[in-house]
């Protein structure tokens, strides 16, 4: 009788004919999951980049600082009015104004707190995304699989804005909870959170779209990042200067950053734009976002699966 041995069988010499690799007859998921798959793997890979880690840490730090600052700002009138201790509530109109101002702060301060980390994250994760894929031959990897250009672009949009979205929503949530703790009613805090979510979506979608648009133009990651930075900052300076020169406030809302800021002002009811001009920031946002996505989609439709 053969004696059982714990020693494993010797590996075959040469090719490893693994029995583990066999035919697959299991379920397959709908291609509609493709953007989520692309985003998940991209976000995982982004976390290995030093720049992304630094930007995330910066975002968390700024969130803590601004949360403390805003908490202090919002706590003072509450303490002064004595509302927290069940004391004087003699001037409801003044309190209502303080509440409105505080809720308006949620929208504007969420954007301001996270502007730099958001810009850096979109720069790292979005502005070089398509360029890096072109350089590494990842187009062949994606488009020889059941991935359409539209789904690829949707996946890259999610991955370009994923970490910024997490930071911005974290900040928004902290601010909304602070509002709830000090002056706002649950409904007021929820309204501020909802509007804040819309604003974060508007900012991140336009930034990501432009980042992907410029990224689709070149296979040089550094060049596409430089173009993105130039569009954000040089565009801001250009339209600010033009607006001041022409003495027309609406011109100042045409650049990538200011169009969302202008919409925040509109949400808060303190916008200088009225009548037909009130639509200009939304139109500018639409042109930046749709134009950039259209450019990227057009470039991707011409993508080749193999060279040589």
């Amino acid at each position, binding site marked *: 009788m053969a004696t059982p041995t714990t020693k494993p069988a010797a590996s075959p010499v040469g090719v490893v004919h693994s029995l*583990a690799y066999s035919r697959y007859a*299991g379920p397959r*998921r709908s291609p509609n999951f493709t953007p989520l*798959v692309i985003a998940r*793997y991209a976000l*995982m890979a982004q976390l290995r980049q030093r720049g992304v880690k630094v930007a995330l840490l910066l975002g968390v730090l700024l969130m803590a600082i601004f949360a403390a600052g805003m908490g202090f700002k919002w706590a003072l009138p509450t303490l002064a009015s004595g509302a927290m201790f069940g004391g004087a509530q003699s001037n409801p109109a003044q309190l209502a104004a303080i509440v409105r101002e505080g809720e308006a702060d949620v929208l504007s301060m969420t954007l301001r707190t996270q502007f730099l980390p958001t810009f850096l994250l979109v720069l790292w994760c979005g502005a070089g995304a398509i360029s*890096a894929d072109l350089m590494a031959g*990842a187009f062949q990897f994606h488009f020889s699989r*059941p991935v359409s250009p539209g789904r690829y672009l949707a996946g890259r949009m999610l991955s370009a804005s994923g970490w910024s979205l997490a930071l911005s929503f974290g900040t928004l949530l902290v601010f909304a909870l602070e509002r709830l703790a000090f002056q706002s009613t649950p409904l007021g805090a929820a309204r501020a959170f909802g509007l804040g979510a819309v604003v974060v979506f508007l900012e991140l979608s336009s930034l990501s779209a432009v980042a992907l648009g410029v990224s689709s133009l070149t296979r040089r990651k550094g060049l596409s990042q430089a173009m993105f930075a130039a569009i954000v900052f040089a565009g801001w300076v250009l339209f600010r200067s033009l607006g001041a020169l022409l003495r027309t406030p609406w011109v100042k809302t045409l650049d990538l950053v200011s169009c969302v800021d202008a919409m925040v002002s509109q949400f808060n009811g303190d916008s200088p734009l009225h009548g037909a001009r009130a639509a200009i920031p939304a139109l500018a946002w639409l042109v930046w976002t749709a134009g950039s996505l259209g450019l990227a989609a057009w470039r991707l439709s011409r993508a080749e699966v*193999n060279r040589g």
Partner: protein
Amino acid sequence: MVIASAAVKLRVRSLSRRYEGVTALDDVTLTIPEGRTALLGPNGAGKSTLLKCVLGLVRPSSGEIEVLGIDPRRDPLGVRARIGYMPEDDAHLPDLTAVELCAYGAELAGLPPNEAIDRAHAALFYVGIDDKRYMPVQGYSTGLRQRTKLAAAIVHDPELLFLDEPTNGLDPASREEMLSLIADLRDRRGCSVVLSTHLLADVERVCDHVVVLNAGKVVADAPLAEVLGVGDGRYLVRVKPVAERFAGFERALHDRGCSSTPSPDARGEWIIRPPTVDDPTPIWEAALQADVQVRHLALRKASLDEAFLRLLA
């Protein structure tokens, strides 16, 4: 050659693709059966364009394509879910390890995450990548990259696999292993393979069907044996090595209109072309006249190199 419909993996009819001023594919008609098929041709022959058309990435100017019974123009994603493609160039994602890259490929093909990671490990083990699978792919050697590309191409269990120059940059041992894997994929895993390569020795080693493209046209679409078997009408004749009878044999051959080339080492091997390709009778008659004992007579098969050059000419 007629191939049963069920055994056809790829069928192309009158396919043309014209770019500005260039005809990349010109009325191409071919049939790729089950098994291992070589796609041969010089640079610019149209191999890459043909692959792009098959993958549904390039819309043909005219003609029809059927991959696994599906028209890629109507359902490109359906086709790509059932085929695998190993490109010639690098095709990886920055910062992903080999396991993650393969699992990513599997998930893009629709496999659930848990299945994808299991099959990624199995495919990498199959191609012979062990502990290095946890390292980022951009740090790999050429051989490991080629193996990773193969693993990523087969991880979702394709029915038809397109390999573009899979042995490029490999040392002899790695090349032999890669060819063994390609053979095994068909023999034991049931995956048909289309091998696009310039290395004719690889084709002779693993392929059983050959498609040759030249200047956008198909110049051969036949089993390898048929391509090799159709020589140039010359026979390999081996006779008993009695040197003093060779001069008379040569004279008798010439009298009957045969051209002959004796083997330089005088071992009794001759390469003879009779006046009529399919009729070796004059050789027999010359041997009888010169009293030479014929021990072997067969149509001489060309090497694939010779056959390839002849087809291109």
